[in-house]
């Protein structure tokens, strides 16, 4: 393994931002997905949804312009863009669960080759994990993309044959953006679309817990 540079978290976010077209309504989870907001190209109108009742929120305010009533689901102070709106929690999740969001981008502990997502409970023994809106987003949104490091800190694969962590939802993930590759989940298989320059297919496979398909790569 040499000759390649994994993407930083910010670079993963920027890579994802490239693929979000103008006009999409998008919910961004905590972690890398949050960074996507600032990476959307200037002038491209993408409308961000927050579980706590906002459509069209914008970046953090200047410190002297913080409005305590205006936070996103990550409890960060945000602003509202022109064309934004507020609504209550049942309406907010009607938007999510009714299939109205074009996309949510979520973090993951594990994703399986059939698109199962595990991103809420850190172990089967954990009896008080915080689910928040993760299951609603995973099940309700038109497209679920995952943004994650390719492996855990101790090098274990996060892309696996079958999830060991408790599931968030079954068969929902459509695409995975890691620090090493862009991988589609198609018909129960991981199909590699893109890799960081200099990384070999063998190296990527070694860091992945399920068989990778390379036939349909867009960039060699």
């Amino acid at each position, binding site marked *: 393994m040499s000759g390649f540079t994994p993407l930083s978290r910010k670079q993963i976010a920027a890579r994802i931002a490239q693929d979000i077209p103008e006009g999409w309504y998008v919910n961004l989870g905590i972690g890398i997905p949050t960074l996507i907001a600032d990476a959307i190209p200037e002038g491209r109108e993408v409308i961000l949804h*927050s*579980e*706590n*009742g*906002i459509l069209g929120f914008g970046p953090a305010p200047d410190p*002297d*312009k*913080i*409005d*305590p*009533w*205006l*936070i*996103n*689901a990550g*409890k960060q102070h945000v602003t*509202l863009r022109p064309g934004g709106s*507020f*609504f*209550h*929690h*049942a309406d*907010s*999740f*009607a938007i*999510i*669960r009714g299939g109205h969001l074009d996309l949510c981008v979520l973090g993951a502990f594990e994703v399986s080759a059939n698109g199962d997502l595990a991103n809420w*409970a850190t172990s*089967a023994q954990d*009896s*008080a*994990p*915080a*689910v*928040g*809106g*993760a*299951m*609603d987003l995973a*099940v*309700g949104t038109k497209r679920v993309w995952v943004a994650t490091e390719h492996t855990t800190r101790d090098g274990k694969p996060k892309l696996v044959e079958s999830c060991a962590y*408790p*599931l*968030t*939802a*079954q068969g929902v993930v459509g695409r995975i953006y890691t620090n090493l590759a862009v991988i589609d989940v198609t018909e129960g298989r991981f199909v590699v679309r893109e890799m960081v320059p200099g990384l070999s297919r063998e190296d990527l496979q070694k860091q992945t817990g399920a068989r990778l398909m390379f036939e349909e790569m867009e960039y060699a």
Partner: protein
Amino acid sequence: MIDKEVRNIAEALGDVRDGSTIMVGGFGSVGQPDALIEGLIAQGARDLTIIANNAGSGMTGLAKLMAAGHVRKIICSFPRSAGSTVFEELFSAGKLELEIVPQGTLAERIRAAGAGIPAFYTATTVGTRLAEGKETREFSGRTYVMERALHADVALIEAWRTDRMGNCIYRESGRNFNAVMAMAGDRTVVQSCGMVTLGMLDPETVVTPGIFVDQVVVVPTHAQINETAGGMC
């Protein structure tokens, strides 16, 4: 003349009974009716079931209520978070029951109670451990879980402005669970940042019509609010 304003919190919460189910609005600290929670602690009812998005953090609000031993069970979507030490200690000591509900299912179960719907089906939790023991059913080839309405004896709500008939508007993301819980309490008590003269709330913009509200206590907020964002409370 209809006037739902009460002079103090003790009057509003005086008759909360042991064993009650209490909804508490807010998301994070935004829209959380802090003064009413303090009032509930002072009032002293025990054996409470709390329905809220989270299980408190730090040593104030819900955490203080739990630390004082007033809570038997909590129904929430986000129990463990930064600073939720009170919850964690009580829960691991077996002194607190917990029901984890996905945030959307929580909101919808609360709305269902307010709308006279005893149960509904949702795709959320299907195939996960949160669906264990729950009834599932197929509609048009997809599997759904049945969820029951969540009622409360008392809903504690924060609103931005109210009038004497109990009509409420909220402020920005302060609307959150407040506007839904207001529908689901047998009794709904509002902590209002300010009372306005009847007729001052635009009828097109009222979010919670007074029919859902039983009592209003005015508690001006001390939060710093940028004047360009709507003026001080």
